[in-house]
């Protein structure tokens, strides 16, 4: 039973190609290496899908590697929870606290990721090892956030998402300060969470609840919409592809089956998976398709959940209440056919227009890009960015924008793809260096 479920979990991980394949394992503690070997994947798509192999990972001190964040939650009194989502009526987050007074850092998860995703947990343990209290926060795009927290029950419009996050952070602050002393606050996030972190820093200028000491953006997109369109273009039917995304996935599963059968795999763990990847002959196109499908699956979850919460009649009939016993596959199929562009044009924009008079697509998109924060980012001496030059979600113009805007406060690695080298020794050391910089403000 145990092994069966582990197998299932590993298959899930491999299927959700957008998440790094080694996500299941906790980083291990051990001897520290004096000279870190170079990050192994020179191909940006490989890096994005495969992540950091165990032997290249940052060696956390044993105390941090064994420290497990505690999950906390609360419910919003009187909130309407659709019957189908009975199981996510509480907002959850994870805390890993020092025993004495310390600075606290929030970590905002990336697109569709939860507060306890492997990347959040690694960052929590990493910053914990440097003496921080750490708090993991789910992405507003995660379906659980939509059900249990989101004011509007919709996600993707950054001002709304950031307002929800700001409220949540305030509640978490009140909760944490009941038990421990916090000397100062910082905020960080990876991928879309990094973009949110930048907007949170800007938002705090108004209320000054946190007066963030450090703001660390890890592999941010510059423009949520642009990056989403890139993912969508990789699986679009008109793309000049040798095979469909479905065929790419079938091939991936077939390859894994072959590998499993011919290697008499006794135990499936990350080193076995890494061996599998080494044997795998995949083209860039196939890797792009896997990443694109991963993103599409995430977006489908978000769109379906939002539609159920709002009873908007987008894929579920408006007058229908889905029971817990009903098959959902037809809705998944329908949602997975919707591109991000369609979602914005047909659902998100009309909703925001129903709330704000005079809203246009141009205004909506302009409110969701770091370029809109340029002035703030240029002058804010406490905001840092760390990323990779070969990040596939950034185009040349966007990479140049980040480099130029952040100047000396930006660190870019030549390779690593999108968050692929997050756990890589050199990358982790640099993140620690940035959050510990003195006298930035």
């Amino acid at each position, binding site marked *: *039973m*145990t*092994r*069966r*479920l*582990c*197998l*299932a*979990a590993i298959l*899930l991980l491999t*299927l*959700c190609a957008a998440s790094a394949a080694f996500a299941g394992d906790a980083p291990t503690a051990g001897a520290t290496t004096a000279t870190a070997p170079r990050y192994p994947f020179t191909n940006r798509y490989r890096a994005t899908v495969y992540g950091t192999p165990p032997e290249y990972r940052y060696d956390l001190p044993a105390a941090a590697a064994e420290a497990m964040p505690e999950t906390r*939650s*609360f419910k*919003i*009194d*009187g*909130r309407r929870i659709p019957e*189908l989502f009975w*199981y*996510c009526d*509480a907002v959850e987050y994870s805390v890993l606290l020092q025993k004495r007074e310390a600075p606290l850092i929030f970590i905002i998860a990336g697109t*569709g*990721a*939860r507060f*306890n995703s492997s990347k959040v947990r690694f960052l929590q343990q990493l910053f914990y090892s440097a003496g921080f209290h750490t708090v993991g926060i789910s992405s507003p795009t995660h*379906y659980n956030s939509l059900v249990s927290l989101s*004011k509007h*029950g919709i996600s993707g419009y950054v001002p709304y998402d950031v307002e929800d996050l700001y409220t949540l952070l305030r509640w978490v602050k009140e909760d944490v300060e009941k038990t421990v002393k916090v000397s100062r606050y910082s905020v960080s996030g990876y991928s879309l969470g990094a973009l949110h972190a930048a907007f949170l820093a800007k938002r705090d200028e108004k209320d000054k609840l946190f007066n963030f000491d450090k703001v660390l953006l890890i592999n941010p997109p510059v423009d949520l919409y642009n990056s989403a369109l890139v993912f969508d273009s990789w699986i679009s039917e008109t793309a000049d592809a040798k095979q469909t995304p*479905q065929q790419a996935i079938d091939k991936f*599963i077939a390859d894994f*089956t072959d590998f499993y*059968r011919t290697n008499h*795999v*006794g135990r499936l763990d990350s080193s076995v998976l890494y061996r599998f990847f080494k044997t795998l002959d995949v083209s860039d196109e196939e890797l792009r398709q896997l990443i694109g499908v991963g993103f599409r*699956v*995430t977006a489908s*979850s978000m769109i*379906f959940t939002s*539609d159920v*919460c*709002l009873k908007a*009649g*987008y*894929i579920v*009939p408006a007058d229908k209440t889905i029971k*817990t*016993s*009903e*098959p*959902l*596959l*037809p*809705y*998944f199929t329908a949602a997975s056919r919707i591109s991000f562009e369609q979602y914005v*044009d*047909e659902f998100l924009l*009309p*909703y925001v227009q*129903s709330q704000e008079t005079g809203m246009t697509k141009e205004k909506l998109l302009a409110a969701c890009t770091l370029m809109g924060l340029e002035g703030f980012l240029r002058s804010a001496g406490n905001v840092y960015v760390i990323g990779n030059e070969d990040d596939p979600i950034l185009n040349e113009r966007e990479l140049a924008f980040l480099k130029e805007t952040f100047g000396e406060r930006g660190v870019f690695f030549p390779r690593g793809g999108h968050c692929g080298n997050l756990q890589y020794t050199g990358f982790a050391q640099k993140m620690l260096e940035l959050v510990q910089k003195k006298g930035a403000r």
Partner: protein
Amino acid sequence: MPPRHAARIIALFVLAGLLCACGVATRQAPEYTLPETAFHAPKSHVVDAEAAQRIDEQSMLYVYDPIERVNRRTYNFNAMADRAIFVPVATGYQKAVPKTVRTGVSNFIGNLNELPGLANSALQANQNKVNVTVIRFVTNTVLGVGGLFDVATDLGFDRADEDFGQTLSVWGVPSGAYVVLPLYGPSSARDTVGTAGDMVFSYYQMEYLFDLAGVSDHSLAGNINTAVRAVNTRSETPFRYYTTDTPFEYDVLRFAYTKARALQGQD
């Protein structure tokens, strides 16, 4: 396991679960109560009622599941029972019992399970797996102090872990419909028979061992055996219901289970 025993064990777990349960804090935030709105998406991709009933064989995640509605109810029941009882008990066990002891318990149970595994390897006429299982059982029983230490894995003999469901698969029995078993979780028509077979084997194995150990109260010993196995299994299984980042978890898990079992049938 006679039903009366099962009822007693469940009652015990409920009690333990209640002891571990802790309240969830609430927040007052009137603007966050998600009131209904009149908003409707101007363009719709609505799946009409008829289409929603049709079995979606074209889907990437399609699995033959004719009793899906029953399965989904069972799945939700399992998720509730897991949250209310099994996870709190397993968490309590992990907190109260040191890791070395837990590993010993796990190894001991694993060693007992080598025997049904051996029977299945033999029924599959798989010489390689029979050898590995015999080596593991003897090594761990002798060098591993009656199975408390898993010396064999350290020596490079990974568990073959054969169950009766896999044996049936080797014999050519197709997996049949997807089934969610109460408390136990994902299965198939074939694996349900397999699980029942393994349970019967395990029952007689334990009866024999109780006799061997001179235990007079078999019913009490049987209850303890079941409870310890349940707690051990749950604390070793990282899966938590409804934490897979998608509201289509049932569908994804069904797909992954089916693929994983198909893989195991081929090793």
